[in-house]
């Protein structure tokens, strides 16, 4: 699960989505030509714009926290695809995975991964179960408490890897068997645990076969060296890498999956949004983005045949309320009625329409309505807390709050506090000002303080100083391919809502990670968690903001399916270009 630097207004915002495209609300792109079967032409250079100041710094699929950026991952997954691929509907897509299927026992303790037999490394060696097992051994070593710098691996602990793993063995060259120490929900483990696995070329990289510690030191040193990554099993090979300039990939002819017809795929560095916009206009970039602040200029692109499409990632945005003991608003924010009243008083429809040009659908729970996935509980299709100031005020009054001098007050505590939010983005400021005005009408007075996002993270994550902040806006969570249950979010110590603790929700979350007899049963437990969580409002749900993608007229298959904004990991090998 990834907390994202989400400047709600910017194209930067839904960071995932730079490369992503979604069909919702944007209509069918004219140039999104089918599925690539008929009429596919060979050749062409797809130039994909990276957002400002995004450099690719790390090429190894196992990363440390400092290098765990989406854009590093977007590149190295072209070289080293994961054992499983999560598609734009947030389901496992075996056609584009190295695994051809995964079976498990009913207890959820033994998982058998059958691998495809036709995959080869680019040097001709077969890709085997040993390569996956070796990857796990590296993950385990990089997760160790005494792992040498720059480790540990940032993903430590997700899906119970490696703590809950008893063994990972190659049963035969194309079968990996994982045995867990204690049973877990199978879907949860497949997404969070097996989802971390990839095949790495053991025959080419294993320099210290008897010393895994030396090996991870060695690999960490090579991780920033693009010249090291010559043996790949993905759809592309890295041809050249120039920091702050461009990263050029060419198709890997030995790739076992869908082969790219492109001549080249270039990740193009962009210093500013303006530079990227100019590059789109001159054709120097043919798959880019339009920052929401540049929305008014969209016609100059569409008149050249570009398609502008919204891209929604799978996650949620929120205003975080400090519910730690010691928080200036502890008594108020730990009261569910106050949180619900505040939610009632956020006009998400107006925010969507007036600020985000209709590219920010309202959101009332941890699972977004857009993009559509099986994880969205149909019972939540009707908003739980639609904008209603009268109801908001009524709820506060029923809870004992009284309006005194224009501010709701209870036991001497006033609903008057400061909200910090990321600076530098006009639409985030506009959203907060709108909320400020609406809340004022129900007797909640807030002052707004913009500050750099890193500072916000620093303040809200410093649990030793809970008195330093009351509420923080403008950030969000993107699930990024992990199972969207709440154990890392809403359990005590989770990423969201410091201080939020509800034993009922904890139990419901635990149920989502416990073994289930079927996927239906698994979803039933998930919906129970989702509904309760949505009602409890541990954080104030806010609009899910899209990024805008600009696709040149000669770029085809740049669809939701292949650009996959849901997770942020595009299948560039399906995109083709016409002459």
């Amino acid at each position: 699960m990834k907390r994202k630097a989400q400047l709600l207004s910017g194209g930067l915002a839904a960071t995932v989505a730079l490369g992503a495209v979604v069909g919702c609300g944007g209509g069918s792109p004219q140039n999104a030509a089918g599925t690539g079967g008929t009429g596919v032409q060979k050749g062409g250079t797809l130039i994909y714009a990276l957002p400002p100041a995004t450099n690719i710094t790390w090429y190894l699929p196992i990363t440390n926290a400092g290098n765990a950026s989406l854009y590093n991952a977007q590149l190295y997954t072209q070289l080293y695809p994961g054992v499983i691929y999560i598609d734009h509907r947030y389901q496992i897509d075996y056609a584009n995975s190295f695994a051809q299927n995964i079976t498990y026992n009913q207890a959820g303790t033994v998982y058998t991964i059958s691998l495809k037999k036709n995959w080869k490394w680019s040097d001709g060696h077969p890709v085997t179960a040993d390569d996956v097992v070796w990857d796990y051994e590296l993950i385990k070593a990089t997760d160790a408490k005494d792992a040498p710098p720059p480790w540990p691996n940032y993903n430590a602990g997700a899906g119970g890897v490696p703590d809950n793993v008893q063994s990972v063995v190659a049963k035969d060259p194309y079968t990996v068997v994982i045995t867990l120490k204690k049973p877990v929900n199978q879907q949860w483990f497949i997404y969070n645990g097996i989802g971390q696995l990839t095949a790495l070329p053991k025959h080419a990289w294993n320099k210290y076969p008897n010393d895994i510690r030396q090996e991870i030191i060695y690999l960490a040193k090579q991780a920033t060296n693009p010249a090291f990554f010559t043996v790949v099993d993905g759809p592309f090979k890295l041809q050249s890498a120039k920091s702050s300039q461009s990263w050029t990939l060419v198709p890997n002819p030995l790739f076992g999956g869908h082969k790219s017809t492109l001549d080249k795929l270039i990740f193009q560095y962009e210093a500013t949004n303006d530079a990227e916009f100019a590059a789109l206009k001159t054709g120097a970039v043919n798959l880019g983005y339009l920052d929401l602040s540049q929305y008014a200029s969209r016609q100059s692109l569409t008149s050249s045949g570009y398609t502008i499409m919204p891209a929604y990632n799978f996650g949620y945005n929120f205003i975080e309320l400090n519910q730690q003991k010691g928080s200036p608003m502890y008594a108020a924010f730990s009261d569910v009625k106050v949180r619900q009243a505040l939610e009632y008083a956020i006009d998400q429809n107006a925010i969507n329409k007036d600020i985000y040009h209709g590219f920010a659908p309202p959101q009332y729970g941890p699972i977004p309505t857009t993009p559509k996935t099986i994880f969205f509980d149909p019972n939540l299709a009707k908003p739980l807390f639609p904008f209603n100031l009268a109801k908001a005020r009524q709820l506060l009054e029923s809870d004992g709050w009284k309006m005194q001098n224009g501010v709701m007050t209870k036991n001497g505590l006033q609903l008057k506090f400061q909200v910090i939010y990321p600076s530098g983005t006009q639409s985030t400021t506009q959203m907060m000002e709108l909320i400020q005005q609406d809340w004022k009408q129900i007797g909640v007075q807030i002052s707004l303080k913009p500050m750099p996002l890193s500072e916000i993270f620093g303040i809200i994550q410093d649990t030793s100083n809970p008195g330093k902040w009351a509420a923080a806006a403008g950030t969000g969570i993107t699930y990024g391919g992990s199972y969207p249950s709440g154990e890392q979010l809403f359990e005590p110590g989770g990423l969201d809502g410091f201080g939020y603790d509800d034993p009922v929700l904890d139990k419901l979350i635990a149920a989502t990670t416990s073994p289930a007899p079927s996927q239906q049963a698994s979803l039933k437990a998930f919906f129970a968690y989702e509904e309760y969580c949505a009602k409890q409002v541990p954080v104030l749900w806010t609009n899910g903001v899209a990024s805008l993608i600009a696709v040149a007229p000669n770029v085809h298959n740049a669809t939701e399916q292949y650009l996959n904004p849901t997770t942020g990991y595009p299948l560039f090998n399906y995109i083709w270009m016409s002459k």
Partner: protein
Amino acid sequence: MLSYIVRRILQAIPSLIGISIITFILLHIVPGNPVRILLGQHYTPQRAAALAQSLGLNKPLYMQYLIWLWNILHGNLGYSYNYTEPVTYLIAHALPNTLSLVLIATIFAQLFAMLIGTVQAYFENTIADHIITVLNYFFYSMPSFWLGILMVMFFSIQLHWFPSGGVVNPQDPNPGFWDWLHHLILPAATLTLVTLAGYSRYMRSSVRETLLMDYVRTARAKGLRESQVLWRHVLRNSILPQITLFGLSFPALFAGALFIEEIFNYPGMGLLYWNAVGTLDYPVLLGVTMFLGALTIIGNLLADILYSLVDPRISLESMS
């Protein structure tokens, strides 16, 4: 001459140490923490502690400074937090780009300034002088990023004459000199235009003063052609202040290239510095600042040497 140069270099050392101390302190009092920025969404106190330790940021500030100083004395500017590459490597890759941009812009700005300044001084208070003055002030007052955007809009987007950014065409596996030059023209022209005005105003004043000198009157009285007076006697003496200006402004041009490199997506020192500011990449910020500090001192020294070469009346030994 040699002893003068050595003495000047030795005198520069305390200045550089002073710059390093001030920069080091200023950087560390800027709000924000590189560890928090690096970890971003992956921040946990444990990871922060581990990362701070691995970067040496858990040590007292004076200790960090002394370690940095010790490393720099051994030719090691440290490792970038952001790129996980040596700072010397990053500077070595960015420097040629900026150097070519700044050198070309400076040379053209100086040449045009000499021409324009001389024309203005010679035809003082004519319509030509007034028009050039207005144009000069126009470009002088125009922010470089704004002019850059206008250049891109006109020459790249409208006319498609030049690329809007980059240093070479990424699609070309073996870009040649012309491709490089093609990418350089717009940013260099922008930098030339914004710096030209300053130089030409100096040149105008300098030529005006020289034109009033006795030796110019004498030259004319001798019956020399006006062009000979101008080239032999006026210009040669008028360009002396330009040389000083060149030495002093060279580092400033590096800094001025920052916005231009951003607009034109040009991977030079400015862009390197810009990215480092965003992530509080201390080693890069310190490395680039020290480099510019050293460049200022060298620029001054070069200006003095050039001055003595152009004007025989000036002796560096006597100056020292």
